[in-house]
């Protein structure tokens, strides 16, 4: 991520140290992850110690300190989805993408993450790809859904 883009986000928040999390969230949503150089720049501009930024960035699940793939898969493992077969769905997605939860494949195509509830239990089991919800999923349907993403 280039310096100008980071600086633009920081300036939008008047370089306020109290806006740290907002700044990090915006960088996260633009860049999909927080590289070390970016955090160093934020630390310098906001006058927040690097240790503090590292603590916060590693604390919240919304932030990623490792690169993410172009498409993010969130697989619901909540109770309703679980009893409706989410573990089998997870096995299928793992087989198709070749990655485990928390990992990103070598082509940077998919990142897989399990979540605890997406809030639409009636649609279980639910898989979310890039924020788009795919409800009432079946292991046999996953390949059809995932092939739409390049």
């Amino acid at each position: 991520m280039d310096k100008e883009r980071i600086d633009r986000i920081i300036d939008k928040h008047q370089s306020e140290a109290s806006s740290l999390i907002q700044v990090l969230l915006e960088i996260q949503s633009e860049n999909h992850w927080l590289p070390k150089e970016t955090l160093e720049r934020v630390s310098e501009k906001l006058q927040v110690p690097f240790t503090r930024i590292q603590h916060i960035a590693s604390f919240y699940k919304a932030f990623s300190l490792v690169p993410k793939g172009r498409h993010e898969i969130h697989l619901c493992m909540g109770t309703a989805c679980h009893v409706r077969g989410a573990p089998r769905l997870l096995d299928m997605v793992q087989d198709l993408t070749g990655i485990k939860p928390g990992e990103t494949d070598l082509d940077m195509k998919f990142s897989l993450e399990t979540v605890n509830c997406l809030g639409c239990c009636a649609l279980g089991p639910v898989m979310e790809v890039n924020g788009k919800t795919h409800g009432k999923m079946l292991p046999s349907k996953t390949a059809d859904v995932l092939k739409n993403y390049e």
Partner: protein
Amino acid sequence: MSQILLKIDGKEVGAREGMTILEAAERAGISIPTLCHHEKLEPYGACRICTVEAEIDSRPKLVAACLYPVEPNLVVRTRSEKIDKTRKMILQLLLAHAPDAPALQDLAKEYGADKDRFEKEASFCIHCGLCVRYCAEVKKKNAVGFVDRGTRREIGFIPEISSKECWNCKECFPLCPTSALQAAYVLTEALMTPAISFKPEKEE
């Protein structure tokens, strides 16, 4: 300056407003065990070993002495069956992380804590935060900080800062109750060598 009178272990103790129970007890010569307390640092309340029983409106409540501010007519007990039981449990939980720490072993002997009570999870760090807070508050270098959260939380040195600041300081080393800090430092140094040298440049 108004004097606040309170009772600690049946002894009348005078304290200034804003003092904590721990400070008031220390002034009265009553000792309360601590692990994460340091006089130069802000109270943190991480280890909970200073837990005492404070009676507020004649209701006893367990509070951390290093954080709880004194108030008029407060009745504090620093040893009781309930407190000893609580401290024993806290010690047993800490000992699962650092079974060989001398500071913990001494307290364990006093409170009869069994270091094998819980399954070992040898992280060696008890998250007292002394190193992190000392580096931030006293030295203002922020070379060491916490990373991650919950059961995965650990301390970590920032190599870029440590390589410049730590060699001639190392003031946090004697603060660590378990030596986990020294291990973290050596690990960071080893991982960074030879790209970043932690040793000071030789004088010509």
